[in-house]
């Protein structure tokens, strides 16, 4: 470690007209600013998607409710799913990757700063394009607005016979554009990690966050391309007389399913692997121990990446594949449990024998571990194909994947927010509000998504705008809806914490958590050039070496 923890003196801040500031943000190619732009943009869409979720939950509060029409309900769940996956989860995780990867590998920026800006603005454009469909979706036909075909848009529902007007086109074009944005960012992350590591940072000394984002970026390249191809084929079907998915003319509806899910399943891992990365940084620091089994964690992630490419058709067990195909996808899906199990055990191994500090980031991490365990176990149930014939397309599966996405991904994201917000802003988030946020969200989450499994077991299919009063689903749905509102309140606490702490939060200093990776060696927020001198590292925890020169990690690795 040749560079000491260097404190950059606060830059001379001059009063600038707001137009100049805006201009700087719009034209920026700085990875940190683009990271923050990605994150803020995703938070705005989180509110949109959240409001759509609440509309869905109000409608389902009791049987035969008529809060919204069936048409509006169908648009709501389509937009909710599409928004949360493509315009919240992906950009927010790209935002963190953008911000953290160069800092953690000791680089001054991403490999291709302009491509980075281009990718962000393309993604941002596609989100607004999708939402413009609320205004422009009718086109010249006057038939409905906003897509109502579900977030996976199964053919032939997207054929012009069943989806007149332009609402599906907005969906298609928005996903196509955001897909190119994602591919651009993935190439950027790959190139950055492979080419810009600081001296001494061999691949096996990279922080796990960099490793996991490397795997994620590789998967984006493999998974997004079939989705983009399918969107182009769909446009050909709709406007150029193609028949790829048009079953009436000999096309195949099942072909669309394969295209969609060979994207859709790796997508889940594209979202969860960066969250594993957050866990692998937060859990060690708050347990005061290095990550348990670093090489095994890397191996588990890489193998998870490969296995996840061979499981997509477990979304299609009800489609009528033959028994050999069903068996194949059952076993590959179960195999996913092995590397993910190894990861959970290693996080517990990290905590074992540590000095666990239950600060807000750690609380959210523990929530993640607990909920991700349950999500994994319900995933095993869904992988047992015959069990899936009952569970698939029901509220059980909705509960399962929200357990992954909310209980897993969102909890990990909250941990990341509380952990890295001080680095991004120079201010600590309030611990008091953080604990309110955590407990409210935890209670709301479990009210909603624990209970949601049960109507599925009782035969309630997903995507229905209402149900019959005599089916015994009323009370359960009411509890689910109340939980959703508690989560909404928790999100408001979180947003308030983000805003108020920005102005009034305690000063963070460079290294508020006494952590060990390179981003904590520079000032908070870091200067545009990140490091005054490029650091040189000798182990996986350069700041540990610096703080404990008598017993550095480099002796043991």
């Amino acid at each position, binding site marked *: 470690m040749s560079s000491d923890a260097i404190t950059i003196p606060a830059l001379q801040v001059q009063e600038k007209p707001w137009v100049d500031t805006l201009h700087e943000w719009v034209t920026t190619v700085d990875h940190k600013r683009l990271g923050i732009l990605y994150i803020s943009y995703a938070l705005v869409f989180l509110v949109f998607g959240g409001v759509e979720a609440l509309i869905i939950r109000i409608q389902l509060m009791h049987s035969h409710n008529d809060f919204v029409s069936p048409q509006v309900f169908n648009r709501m769940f389509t937009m909710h799913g599409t928004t949360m996956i493509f315009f919240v989860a992906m950009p927010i995780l790209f935002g963190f990757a953008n911000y953290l990867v160069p800092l953690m590998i000791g680089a001054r920026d991403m490999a291709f700063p302009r491509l980075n800006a281009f990718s962000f603005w393309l993604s941002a454009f596609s989100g607004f394009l999708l939402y413009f469909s609320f205004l422009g979706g009718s086109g010249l036909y006057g038939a409905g607005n906003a897509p109502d075909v579900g977030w996976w848009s199964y053919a032939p529902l997207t054929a012009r016979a069943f989806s007149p007007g332009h609402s599906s086109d907005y969906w298609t074009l928005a996903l196509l554009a955001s897909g190119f944005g994602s591919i651009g960012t993935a190439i950027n992350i790959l190139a950055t990690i492979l080419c810009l590591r600081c001296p001494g940072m061999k691949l096996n000394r990279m922080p796990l966050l960099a490793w996991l984002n490397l795997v994620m970026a590789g998967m984006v390249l493999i998974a997004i391309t079939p989705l983009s191809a399918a969107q182009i084929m769909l446009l050909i079907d709709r406007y150029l007389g193609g028949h790829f998915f048009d079953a009436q003319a000999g096309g195949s509806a099942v072909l669309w399913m394969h295209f969609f899910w060979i994207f859709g399943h790796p997508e889940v891992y594209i979202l969860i692997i960066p969250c594993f990365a957050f866990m692998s940084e937060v859990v060690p620091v708050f347990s005061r121990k290095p990550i348990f089994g670093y090489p095994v964690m890397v191996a588990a992630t890489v193998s998870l990446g490969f296995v996840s490419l061979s499981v997509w058709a477990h979304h299609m067990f009800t489609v009528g594949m033959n028994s050999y195909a069903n068996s194949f996808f059952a076993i590959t899906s179960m195999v996913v449990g*092995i590397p993910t199990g190894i990861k959970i055990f290693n996080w517990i191994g990290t905590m074992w024998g540590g000095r666990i500090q239950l600060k807000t980031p750690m609380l959210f991490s523990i929530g993640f571990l607990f909920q991700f365990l349950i999500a994994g176990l319900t995933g095993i149930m869904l992988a047992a194909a015959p069990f899936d014939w009952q569970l698939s397309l029901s509220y059980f599966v909705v509960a399962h994947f929200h357990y992954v996405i909310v209980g897993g991904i969102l909890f990990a994201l909250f941990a990341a927010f509380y952990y890295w917000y001080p680095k991004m802003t120079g201010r600590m988030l309030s611990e008091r509000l953080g604990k309110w946020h955590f407990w409210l969200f935890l209670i709301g989450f479990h009210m909603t998504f624990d209970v949601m499994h049960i109507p599925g077991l009782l035969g309630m299919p997903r995507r229905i705008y209402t149900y019959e009063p005599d089916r015994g689903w009323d*009370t359960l749905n009411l509890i689910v809806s109340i939980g959703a509102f508690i989560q909404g309140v928790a999100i408001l606490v979180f947003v308030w914490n983000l805003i108020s702490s920005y102005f009034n939060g305690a000063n963070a200093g460079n290294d508020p958590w006494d952590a060990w990776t390179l981003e904590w060696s520079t000032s908070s927020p870091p200067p545009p050039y990140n490091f005054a001198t490029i650091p040189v590292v000798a182990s996986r925890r350069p700041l540990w070496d610096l703080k404990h020169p008598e017993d550095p990690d480099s002796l043991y690795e």
Partner: protein
Amino acid sequence: MFALWSLLLPPQVLAEHSRSPITSIFAPESTPAKSIVNLSVFVLIITGIIFAVVCTLLVYSISKFRANSANADREPAQVYGSNQIEMAWTIIPVLIVVVLFLATARVIHAIQDALEPAGAIEVTAIGHQYWWEFRYPKLGIVTANELHIPVTDRSHPTPTFLQLLSADTDHSFWVPELAGKTDLIPNHLNRMWMDPHRTGIFLGQCAQYCGTQHAKMLLRISVDTPQDFEAWVRGQQQPAVQDPSVTTGRRVFEHTACINCHTVSGTPADGRFGPDLTHLMSRTTIAAGAAENTPENLRLWIQAPGKIKPGSLMPAMKLSDADLDTVVHYMRTLR
């Protein structure tokens, strides 16, 4: 809260409510559904044990290894990993996966590759936006939304084998107590079977999002005794009743757009876009289960389908009040 309790009840208790609308997947009444439950319970036990073990480890490490004032000022021993432990928690999950897979593959094969016995009832189910068409090719019957099948007894099995097709978008056939769901996909023939062990009404509905009224594409299966089933078959095989007292209604029906979509056998009405009405009155519901089959609901359905099922493809027929009454009367004679 009946719903919650019904999960805990043993299936026999539930079976006593023969018309219970609670459709728990854990109350199976036919062989495929039963073998799914057996597998499910096995999977639940294994996942339950995993949950208990991992959760205990997690809770123990959080409570045991919390920082306190005595130790907060120094760092704990820095442990980097252990190959033996990693091996252990890799190999054990591998073994669990092998066991789970073998159990799963067995049930997949038993259900999917079951051979059709000679006495099986054959039904072609065709999904439409937003209703079900059922054709019994060997018996020459066409009906809609309410499937009649015979109960099976061990000595003389009469399982029902369904061929699944779709006329438009994707649908999924799901009656939780009788079988897992299978999709109906255009241009893609699927198959499923069931052999109900008791008589009664079994509820289900379309499980694959198929458009605006996916929610009200309901499904009911009436499992009849062999005698009742035979009687039902004979009734359905009759041509439509020609009741001279409703000639006016019949003329209105046959001179409006009704006949473009609906069939009444033995009359000019031979449309196939909507449900076959030849024996409409033998069904207990209309609009794919969205409403009881009463004269008032029939009238409302013909006059303003959107009031019962907004977004359904049945158009409002805009008949005069007098015509409406005569058509409803005509419908009421189609037993």
